[in-house]
C-alpha cells in the first residue's frame, strides 16, 4: 500500500528518532518504531489529520514505560496510572472537560532526559548522561535544564513539541539555549496530576516547540480544571480571569525591570534584547521603566522554599514499596562497618546510592531550612519575601490578580487601573546572561560550587515565585550567531496576552529577517 504524501514527513521523523538520540541523548526511553508508525497511520486513516509527534519529560508518569526522573532510585519504576496531561494529549482522558474530537491527537515517542528530579540547570545531572545541544555542531554545549531532553528533541526537528516542567526556569532556560519557544503557563492552569513533585508550589507543566501555533493548540487542550489536582485553578477563577482580560488595548504598555538589568549580560544577549525592544518602540507600543525591589532577593527565597519542599517530597523514596533498594543496606545488618548500623536512618544506604550528589545536597539544604531556628529565620522569612514580591508584581500590572482579590475588588481595580493609565500589560527581560556554555565549562564551574549554577536562574526564578505566565521566544539577529531567548511575563492568569506577545515578537523578527534577506 502506498504511503499518503501527508504522512511521509512524520514517518521520516519517526525513522530519525534513533539517530537523533544517538547524537544528543535527548531521550531516556523510546517507544517501538513500528508501534509509532502504526499509531500514526491509524490515526490519519480515521481522522484524515496528521497527528503531532511529542515527547514527555521523564518526571511525568506514563504506563507504557518506566518513569525514572533521571535517577537510579526510580530506574525501573513503572507507574500504574497515566498523568492527566498524557491522557489528554493521547485522547484517552475520560474526565476531560473538553471534547477531544476537536483537537489533533499526539503520538508520544518516548520520555525525555532531565536533571534528576528536575534539580539542575544543564541536564547534566541525569544517570543517563548529559543531553547535548543540537544547535552546536562542532563542540558539545549544554541544552540548559532541567527540561533539556525535551528541548533538544524539538530543536533537532524530530518532535513537533515536547512537554516539560518548569519549577525555577526549567522550560525557559532550555528554550533560550536551544533557540526554540518555551511556554510556562500560570501555576494551576495545567494539571499536575502525575507530575512527580520537586517543589509542588512551583512545579508547572509547560510546552516547548518551534511553532507557536502548536503551542497554542496544545495549551488549549491542556488548559482545563482537573479535580484530581488540588492546586488546579477552579472553573470559577478561570471564568473570572476571562472576564477581566477580554478587553485589551491594541497598543501595549511594556515594562523593563530595573532589577533584571544585571551585570554580566553578554553582548549577544544585550544586542538581541535591545533590538526586540527597539522594534516594539518603533511600532508605537509604550515602553516604561519598572522597579520591583524584591527581585534581588528571589534567588535565596527560591532556594529556601523550593529545597524545603523538595526535602519533604523526596522523603517518600525509601526503596520499600517501589524503586531501587540497596543490597548493601542488607549486608550492613550486623556488619563490622565503621559506621554503626542505621546510624543515619534505615533507608540511608538506599537513598545515598539512589540519589545523585546534587539531589542529596538539595535535600540537605532543604532539611536545614526546615529545622528548628532555620524554620523561623529562613523558611518563614522567605515566604514573607515571596508574598512581598507577589504584591509588587500585582501593583504594576493593569490586570488584577484574581487570587489576591475578590470579584468585586478585581473589577474595581481594573476600572481604576484603566483610568489612571500608569500600569503595564507585560514585562520583558532576557532569560539568561549568556548563550549556552560548553559542556566542559559548565561541568567545571558546577564542580567548583553548586552556587554557580544557581546563579543561572536569576532571571527565571521571579516569575516562578509568583506563578506568572511566561513565554520565551527566540530572537534571531544578523549580528549574532545564535538565536537569543526573549522572556515575556504577564499577570497571573493572563496567559493569552503572553502568547499574543510571543506571536508579535516572532512576527516582527521574521519580517526583519525577510527584509534583510531581500536587501
Amino acid at each position, binding site marked *: 500500500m502506498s504511503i499518503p504524501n501527508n504522512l511521509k514527513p512524520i514517518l521520516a521523523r519517526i525513522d530519525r528518532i534513533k539517530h537523533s538520540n544517538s547524537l544528543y541523548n535527548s531521550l531516556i526511553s523510546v517507544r517501538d518504531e513500528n508501534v509509532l508508525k502504526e499509531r500514526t497511520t491509524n490515526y490519519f486513516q480515521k481522522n484524515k489529520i496528521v497527528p503531532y509527534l511529542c515527547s514527555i519529560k521523564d518526571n511525568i508518569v506514563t504506563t507504557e514505560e518506566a518513569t525514572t526522573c533521571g535517577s537510579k532510585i526510580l530506574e525501573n519504576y513503572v507507574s*500504574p*496510572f497515566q498523568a492527566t496531561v498524557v491522557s489528554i494529549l493521547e485522547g484517552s482522558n475520560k*474526565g476531560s472537560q473538553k471534547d477531544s474530537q476537536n483537537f489533533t491527537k499526539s503520538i508520544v515517542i518516548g520520555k525525555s532526559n532531565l536533571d534528576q528530579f528536575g534539580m539542575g540547570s544543564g541536564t547534566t545531572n541525569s544517570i543517563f548522561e548529559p543531553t547535548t545541544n543540537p544547535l552546536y555542531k562542532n563542540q558539545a554545549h549544554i541544552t540548559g535544564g532541567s527540561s533539556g531532553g525535551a528541548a533538544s528533541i524539538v530543536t533537532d526537528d524530530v518532535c513537533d513539541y515536547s512537554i516539560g516542567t518548569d519549577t525555577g526556569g526549567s522550560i525557559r532556560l532550555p528554550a533560550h539555549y536551544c533557540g526554540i519557544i518555551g511556554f510556562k503557563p500560570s501555576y494551576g492552569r495545567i494539571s499536575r496530576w502525575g507530575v512527580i513533585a520537586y517543589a509542588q*508550589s512551583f512545579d508547572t507543566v509547560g510546552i516547548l516547540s518551534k511553532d507557536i501555533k502548536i503551542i497554542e493548540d496544545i495549551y488549549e487542550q491542556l488548559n482545563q480544571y482537573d479535580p484530581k489536582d488540588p492546586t488546579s485553578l*477552579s472553573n470559577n*477563577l478561570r471564568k473570572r480571569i476571562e472576564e477581566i482580560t477580554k478587553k485589551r488595548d491594541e497598543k501595549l504598555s511594556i*515594562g*523593563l525591570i*530595573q*532589577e533584571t*538589568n*544585571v*551585570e554580566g549580560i553578554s553582548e549577544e544577549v544585550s544586542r538581541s*534584547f*535591545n533590538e526586540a525592544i527597539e522594534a516594539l*518602540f518603533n511600532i508605537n507600543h509604550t515602553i*516604561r521603566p*519598572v522597579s*520591583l*525591589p524584591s527581585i*534581588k*532577593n528571589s*534567588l*535565596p527565597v527560591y*532556594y529556601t522554599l523550593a529545597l524545603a519542599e523538595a526535602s519533604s517530597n523526596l522523603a517518600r523514596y525509601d526503596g520499600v514499596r517501589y524503586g531501587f533498594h540497596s543490597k548493601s543496606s*542488607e549486608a550492613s*545488618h550486623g556488619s563490622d562497618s565503621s*559506621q554503626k548500623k542505621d546510624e*543515619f*536512618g534505615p533507608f540511608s544506604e538506599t*537513598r*545515598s546510592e539512589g*540519589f545523585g550528589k546534587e539531589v*542529596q*545536597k538539595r*535535600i*540537605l*539544604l532543604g532539611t*536545614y*531550612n526546615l*529545622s528548628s531556628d532555620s524554620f*523561623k529565620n*529562613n523558611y*518563614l*522569612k522567605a515566604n*514573607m*519575601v515571596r*508574598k*512581598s514580591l507577589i*504584591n*509588587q508584581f500585582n501593583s504594576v500590572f493593569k490586570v488584577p490578580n484574581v487570587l*489576591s*482579590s*475578590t470579584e468585586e475588588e478585581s473589577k474595581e481595580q481594573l476600572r481604576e487601573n484603566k483610568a489612571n493609565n500608569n500600569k503595564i500589560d507585560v514585562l520583558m527581560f532576557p532569560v539568561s546572561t549568556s548563550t549556552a556554555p560548553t559542556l566542559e565549562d559548565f561541568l567545571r564551574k558546577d564542580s567548583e*560550587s*553548586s*552556587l554557580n549554577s*544557581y*546563579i543561572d536562574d*536569576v532571571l527565571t526564578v521571579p516569575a516562578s515565585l509568583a506563578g506568572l505566565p511566561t513565554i520565551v521566544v527566540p530572537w534571531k539577529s544578523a549580528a549574532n550567531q545564535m538565536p537569543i531567548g526573549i522572556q515575556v511575563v504577564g499577570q497571573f492568569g493572563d496567559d493569552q496576552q503572553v502568547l499574543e506577545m510571543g506571536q508579535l515578537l516572532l512576527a516582527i523578527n521574521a519580517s526583519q529577517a525577510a527584509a534583510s534577506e531581500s536587501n
Partner: protein
Amino acid sequence: MLLRPISRCFIRYNSTNVASVGKPFKSLEEIKKFLAAPSWNPKDFVLSDKTVGDASSEEKLVTTDELKYLLRLSNLKLPQDEQDQQSLLNELNNQIKFVNSLHSLPTSSLVGCGGDLSSISEQIRLSSSSRILDNNPVPLNFDELMSSISSISNSVDAEKGEVSSSWGPMELTSNPLNDHQYVVVEKP
C-alpha cells in the same frame, strides 16, 4: 555587620522596597541608556570556599556534628572519605550563607506583610497566603459539604492506578525480603 563585604550589604538593603512604574521612555536613546546601566551583580551571592570557616564571619555555620544530625533527618549517609566529608560540609555552609542573606532584610520593609511580624503565629499565617492559591475561597455551607461527601466514590478508580485488592498489608508477613529479613506485624 561592618565586617561583611559591602557588596552583600548592597544586595540585602534596599532603602525603599516599594514597586514603581515610571513614565514612558520618550526615545530609543533613553531606553538604551536605561538598559546599559546594570543595577546589581548576582555573582555577589556566590562566595568562594575561602570565606567558609572564616573566623571573622558572624554567620552561624554548621559543624560536623550538626551535619550528621541533618543527614540523619534526611536519611542520607555521611561520605566515608574525610575529604569528601569536608567538601560536603563546605558546600553546605556556602549554600547556607547564600540563603542566610535574607536574615538582614528588615521585615518592616516587606510590602503587604502588615501585622505583628515578631509573632511566629502571624508569620505562619502570612506564609500560607504566599501560596499561589485562591486567597479568598468561598467556604462550603453545610448542604454543600454533605453533598461533596456523598459524591466521593467508594469504588477504586482505575484512572488513578487503584486496583481492587491489590495490596494486603498482612501479605508482607508471608513474603520475606530475604533469608534473614521479614516484616513483623503484631496482631492485637
